């Protein structure tokens, strides 16, 4: 089934932090340098416990339906991963699997059992196979070099130290106010904790650097142009939306630094002329994940991102009606917002303001606030006109396609054009398959719009649609 034709959404995953962080060792490849610590890695009971937990977590991702089921995208990601692995046998207790996760967060992660997940948010951001290979190469290094196990061991030790410092801080309370011993204990307790936490993040950053280094080597040996890695970091710096989870990359070295470092490494390594892949080939394989993600972004109040990704699809296949509908939907949901952030929004202060508004205001309240600004109504009008234009283009491309009529219905109802909205909803219902999930919703709207309908049957004005 075409992934674009049905709305779908990711479930925001809160992954145990330990799975996202990883540590340094070396691969066992004949052509790639190896980390001495990973070569001599021995499983302990702590590692086996972690592995059991990870295996269960891995199964749950599938059971919860969070793994993208599109066979083309899945086979493609798996094939790129296997190409990077070459003939190298997997390490003990590792079975490599490469999958796309239904999650619009721009991220990828590796579980120590060999399951590597690239979020649909990241898949949609990338432009070619080599960029995907740079992500997978990085994650493979985490697995082969046993980073998760080593990091987990390190954190466990450091947590005990934090406990000791906490106890020291608490013990300061037993001393009389103003006593030197009490003050020393309080300060050392506090500083000690800060220092240990700093070493944890510092250690994690070292592991990320190592994964970049060996990931880049792995790309080169698999026949990919390693210059794709710094380009990927450049893409990661995209700031269409603010970062809802503050410090998502806190454990990672700064993107700018990673970009520069990997650029230097790529220059030294060479490899210009090796495989990069075209955007067209990439989208040919991965478009289902991109479509899924556009829908997810629209649901998650990231209309700017949705618009950027849907434009990628319409530029690739300008006559594909489902892509045109996605672009139209993006403009419609954008409402009074601009397609790109203003220079003020890109400033640190602007980002903070944006974050504050996101947590404080509902989507509808945010739109109302934007409309109250002098440029708001004009912006809304422009976006809705574009949405209407793309819906009509989609109908022109495929007049039997129901979805653009649904979108037009939403748009006209929002503009108060009841007769037009009624007509479009009726057209949608006549064209949509009998088992369309949206049927009931549209029928209810239709009923509510009919003359003499009871007020408040549905609340389209409040609905983000």
């Amino acid at each position, binding site marked *: 089934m075409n992934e674009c034709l049905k709305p779908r959404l990711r479930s925001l995953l809160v992954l145990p932090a330990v799975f996202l962080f990883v540590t340094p060792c070396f691969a066992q490849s004949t052509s790639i340098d190896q980390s001495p610590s990973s070569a001599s890695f021995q499983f302990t009971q702590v590692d086996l416990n972690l592995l059991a937990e990870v295996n269960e977590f891995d199964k749950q991702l599938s059971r919860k339906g969070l793994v993208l089921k599109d066979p083309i995208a899945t086979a493609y990601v798996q094939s790129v991963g296997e190409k990077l692995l070459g003939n190298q046998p997997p390490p003990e207790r590792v079975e490599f699997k490469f999958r796309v996760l239904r999650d619009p967060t721009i991220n990828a992660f590796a579980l120590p059992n060999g399951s590597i997940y690239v979020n649909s948010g990241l898949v949609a951001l990338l432009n070619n196979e080599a960029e995907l290979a740079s992500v997978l190469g990085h994650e493979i290094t985490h697995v082969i070099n046993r980073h998760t196990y080593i990091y987990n061991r390190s954190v466990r030790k450091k947590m005990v130290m934090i*406990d000791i410092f906490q106890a020291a801080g608490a013990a300061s309370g037993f001393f009389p106010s103003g006593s030197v011993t009490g003050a020393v204990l309080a300060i050392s307790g506090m500083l000690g904790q800060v220092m240990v936490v700093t070493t944890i993040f510092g250690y994690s950053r070292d592991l990320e650097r190592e994964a970049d280094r060996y990931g880049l080597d792995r790309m080169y040996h698999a026949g990919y142009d390693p210059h794709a890695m710094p380009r990927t970091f450049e893409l990661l710096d995209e700031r269409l939306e603010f970062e809802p989870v503050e410090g998502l990359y806190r454990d990672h070295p700064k993107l700018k630094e990673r970009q520069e470092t990997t650029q230097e490494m790529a220059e030294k390594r060479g490899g210009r002329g090796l495989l990069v892949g075209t955007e067209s080939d990439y989208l040919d394989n991965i478009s289902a994940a991109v479509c899924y993600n556009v829908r997810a972004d629209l649901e998650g109040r990231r209309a700017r991102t949705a618009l950027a990704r849907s434009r990628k699809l319409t530029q690739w296949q300008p006559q594909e009606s489902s892509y045109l509908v996605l672009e139209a939907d993006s403009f419609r949901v954008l409402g009074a917002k601009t397609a790109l952030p203003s220079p003020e929004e890109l400033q640190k202060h602007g980002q903070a303001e944006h974050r504050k508004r996101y947590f404080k205001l509902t989507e509808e309240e945010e739109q109302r606030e934007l409309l109250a600004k002098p440029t708001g109504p004009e912006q809304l009008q422009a976006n809705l006109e574009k949405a209407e234009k793309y819906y009509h283009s989609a109908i022109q491309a495929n007049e039997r396609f129901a979805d653009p009529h649904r979108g037009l219905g939403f748009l006209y109802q929002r503009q108060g054009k009841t007769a037009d909205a009624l007509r479009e909803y009726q057209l949608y219902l006549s064209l949509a398959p009998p088992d369309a999930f949206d049927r009931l919703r549209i029928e209810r709207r239709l009923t509510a719009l009919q003359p003499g309908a009871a007020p408040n049957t549905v609340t389209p004005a409040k609905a983000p649609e």
Partner: protein
Amino acid sequence: MNFFRRTFLAVLLVSLDVGTALAVTASKSYTNPKLSSGQTSVTRVCMTPPEAQLDKVGMKGVEGMSKESEIWSAQLQAVVETELKDLGVAITSTGMSNSDLESNDDLRQAMLQIQEKYKSVATQMERKAKDIKKSRYTLGDEVALLPCSADSDSLAFVEGEGRVLTGGKKAFGMLIGGESSSRGTLRITFVDAKSGDVLAYALFLNNGKFEDDPQSAYGKKLGKELKKIGIGPHEGKKK
């Protein structure tokens, strides 16, 4: 010195025992005036798959409890369903179990979409839950994407979050005055199955053995709170 040490340890042990014995469930709820005035009612509920997560907190940090979380999720759902049925509410989520969703990817997508929308709204709702009384929060008529919404007057979202402390961590918490008991939070949100408006939001916090026996931990309080909110059929109320 020995006397002080012995006294201190005795106090610590007694406190731990008392702490466990005094496990309580606190609750708080917010109701949309549409529900409290009887304009709408919650009598046929479609339960969305529960989302619950347990973490084990020990001296060496936090560990996941994936398997236990899954079991706990199912238990929480069972507790909520039991209490709703006791209030005369019909459960209409037939065909919406995890195994049903597993075999129907389209339905799974619709469910993920609604859950995503719920999370987006919950961001503000949890921050200012009292605004439910002002009818401020809605998921929109998108809730009709779930087939069960045709046959229900509301949808229920059940979420759980628990921090299970090890014995060592509890004792350490008592010593230094930090976190010294496990805590499990249960959240239930009722949403109008047509308009998507949030009708009620109830929050339960337990510091006992919530992970082993959710029925004892939440059941009684849950029943009382749901009744207070106005869940279930109410004859004679204005429709």
